[in-house]
């Protein structure tokens, strides 16, 4: 027997299925959400970068506006006679110069927080009282020092606690073709914390005012951690040095991601250097929110997916379980079980097929139980359809009874070994039973070497079954010649049989107890048939008178004889018959043989 094997885990199918569906659901959800949120974040960062470029322009415009005002004020201050006097009159002492700046010039320019003058050698001639820091600041500041070479300089400067936007304007004198520098006038305006906060509010970005990569002043958390001053620090210097002026760059400050953009000093507009930054994490807050919502959806989706997949798996597994249970019932010969699989899917078809299979097995089991193997399936089916087969006792009706027996078998079996005896009987029965089945007869019983068979007309004419039974007898006698040839070839002795046939009423059906019933036939006609068979000589077919009356036109009568039969009071007329044509075992009229129709 071929065995089809499948390899699998020792894990219920429904759990496997549920697990698979869950994995697929989680995979699809996770993949979708991951791709979605990455795309949203990438697009958001792209937008923030573009936005940061716009912000840079806004801040630059605001700083430039202040720068232009400073330039105008610086020109006004340096164009006055007092400033030239400070820079040219060596007789003026520092105290007087400072007084001129503070009390003579500055009152006319209240916007200015810083005003001073440096001579052409770089020595401070005067300044408003900002303390001595300003000299150090000017000495250190490369941008402002560049003004001593005759070019206007811009920058941010921290003096004490305050920070200022400064312009250093060389004071040039002389005709256009040769203007010489008397010194540098520097003016400045304060950037208060309020100003920076306003600038930050307007631009929406954190801002740092720079001087030589040092943060002079700043507003916003991106720069809060960086120390301010007029010189770069170990912390701010490297960051500010590396920040690009064209492409926003990301740095993490105190665990928060920021996009930085630095704007170097612009010679054309005079805008001093500054840096802006925008918190990526704050800007991507909505992405975080989307991610949170997605995770919630994913969580709910996973739970639902698990439940739904479990439900689906159960639904799919239920018919399988039903079929398994039904198969176990069938294995225990309980053919009454039926599976019910609703729906129109493949499982419903499988259920129907399974039910058909059970019905077929049941029928085959009943046939085997009732008739053994020696009956035509169609005949058995028709017999089983009759009501008497559903209960014990059977029914009395007209049938043709057939009996055949090997002549001299007892003596023959004494001469043979048991194996040869069994071999001989098997070969004989194999041919004989086949002919009975072909002629729609039912082998009812074996009695040693004898066979009791029944030809039941069921819903057909009795004459038809009579012809079939007689034809079966002729066929047997004819086939026996062939069987004998084979047995002789195999070293077995030839045999001869006598056949008796009778027609009459008999009880047909389930005979026996409730625990052990089998198909059978009982009655006086059966006994009579046995006696008729006993009267048949080897090779003869002997018919009772009632049967002969049904087939007399189709047989050849070899002899007619009247004899008393044991157990029967009246003598009976019996007919030894043969086929009309010696060469053919068949009856003369083909219509008597139902297999020929």
């Amino acid at each position, binding site marked *: 027997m071929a065995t089809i094997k499948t390899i699998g885990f020792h894990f219920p199918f429904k759990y496997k299925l549920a697990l698979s569906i869950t994995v697929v659901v989680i995979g699809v959800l996770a993949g979708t959400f991951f791709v979605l949120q990455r795309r949203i974040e990438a697009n958001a960062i792209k937008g923030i970068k573009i936005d940061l470029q716009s912000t840079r322009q806004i801040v630059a415009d605001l700083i430039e506006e202040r720068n232009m005002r400073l330039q105008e004020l610086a020109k006004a201050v340096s*164009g*006055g*006679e007092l400033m*030239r*006097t400070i820079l*040219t*009159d*060596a*007789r003026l002492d520092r105290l007087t110069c400072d007084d001129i700046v503070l009390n003579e010039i500055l009152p006319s320019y209240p916007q200015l927080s810083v005003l001073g003058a440096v001579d*052409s*050698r770089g020595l401070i001639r005067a300044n408003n009282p900002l303390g001595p820091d300003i000299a150090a600041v000017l000495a250190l500041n490369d941008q402002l020092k560049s003004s*001593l*070479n*005759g070019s206007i300089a811009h920058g941010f400067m921290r003096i004490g606690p305050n920070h200022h936007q400064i312009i250093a304007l*060389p004071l*040039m*004198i*002389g*005709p*256009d*073709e*040769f*203007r*010489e*520098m*008397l010194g540098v006038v520097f003016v400045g305006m304060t950037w208060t914390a309020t100003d920076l906060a306003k600038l930050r509010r307007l631009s929406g970005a954190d801002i740092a005012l720079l001087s030589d990569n040092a943060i002079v002043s700043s507003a916003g958390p991106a720069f809060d951690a960086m120390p301010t001053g007029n010189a770069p620090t170990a912390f701010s210097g490297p960051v500010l040095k590396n920040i690009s002026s064209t492409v926003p760059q990301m740095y993490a400050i105190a665990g928060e991601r920021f996009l930085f953009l630095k704007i170097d000093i612009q010679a054309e507009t005079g805008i001093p250097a500054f840096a802006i930054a925008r918190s990526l994490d704050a800007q991507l807050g909505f992405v975080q929110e989307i991610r949170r919502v997605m995770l919630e959806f994913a969580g709910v989706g996973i739970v639902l997916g698990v439940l739904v997949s479990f439900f689906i798996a159960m639904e799919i597994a239920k018919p399988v379980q039903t079929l398994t249970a039904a198969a176990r019932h069938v294995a225990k010969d309980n053919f009454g079980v039926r599976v019910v699989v609703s729906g129109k899917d493949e499982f419903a078809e499988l259920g129907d097929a399974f039910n058909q299979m059970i019905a077929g097995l049941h029928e085959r089991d009943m046939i085997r139980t009732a008739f053994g193997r020696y009956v035509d399936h169609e005949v058995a089916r028709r017999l089983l359809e009759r009501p008497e087969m559903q209960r014990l006792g059977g029914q009395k009706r007209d049938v043709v009874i057939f009996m055949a027996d090997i002549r001299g078998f007892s003596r023959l079996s004494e001469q043979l070994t048991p194996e040869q005896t069994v071999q001989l009987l098997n070969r004989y029965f194999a041919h004989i039973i086949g002919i009975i089945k072909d002629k729609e007869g039912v082998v009812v019983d074996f009695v040693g070497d004898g066979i009791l068979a029944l030809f039941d007309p069921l819903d057909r004419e009795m004459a038809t079954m009579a012809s079939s039974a007689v034809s079966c007898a002729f066929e047997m006698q004819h086939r026996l010649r062939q069987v004998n040839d084979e047995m002789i070839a195999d070293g077995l002795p030839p045999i001869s049989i006598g056949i008796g046939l009778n027609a009459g009423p008999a009880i047909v059906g389930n005979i026996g107890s409730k625990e052990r019933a089998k198909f059978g036939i009982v009655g006086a006609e059966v006994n009579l048939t046995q006696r008729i068979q006993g009267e048949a000589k080897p090779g003869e077919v002997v018919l009772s008178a009632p049967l002969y009356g049904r087939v007399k036109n189709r047989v050849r009568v070899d002899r007619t004889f009247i004899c008393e039969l044991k157990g029967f009071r009246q003598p009976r007329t019996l007919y030894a018959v043969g086929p009309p044509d010696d060469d053919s075992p068949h009856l003369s009229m083909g219509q008597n043989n139902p297999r020929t129709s």
Partner: protein
Amino acid sequence: MRIALLSLMMVLSAAFSEAADIDGWIVVMDKSGQNPLKSHAHVIVYLEGFFSEPDGVAVIDQQAKRFMPRLLPAIRGQTIRFENSDIYQHTVFSTHPTEPFSLPRYGQGESRNVVLHDIGPHPIFCDIHQNMIADVYVVPNRYFAVTDARGFFRIADVPAGRHRLRAWHILGGNATLFVNIDSGNRAVSLELQSVKTAVETPVSPWPVPGGEATDFQQDGYD
């Protein structure tokens, strides 16, 4: 007394010895010392160590709101005439630490005289016009010259002997050089580094625009 004797000896030696010219080239570098100026004019070169009496009047004019010339050499004690050919009034003043002066406002066609004695530059401004600037450089004697745009100068008839030559540029650059004059002309060259910053309008020194000014006579002497 010693100075008077020394001067007398110089004059006598000049009278009895053969005089020679000092020709020279001055290169003026900018404040960084890396780049030469486009014009090497406005350098006064003179001999130190002896004095001579001034002769004539040194004249500086005011035209189109500028002093002409930009650098005026004047021998110590020489009368310096500040003329005004401009249509505007001007007030001339100097912020020299020891010899300052201020000439009240005067108009076109008028002039004022000043006599200065301190050797060295005397920066001159106008009280009204912020762009006007000039330097009157008081020299000790008549042996001086002012460079042209190419930086060329010539001090003629220098008496024989060892002289200290000093050069000063209006941007503050200055240098000294000892020159021995015995027989024949001497050629010298000097490089000055500016102290101040200046912005020059690009002009080509060849040919010199505005004329053939190569010596001090054309720089304002009668």
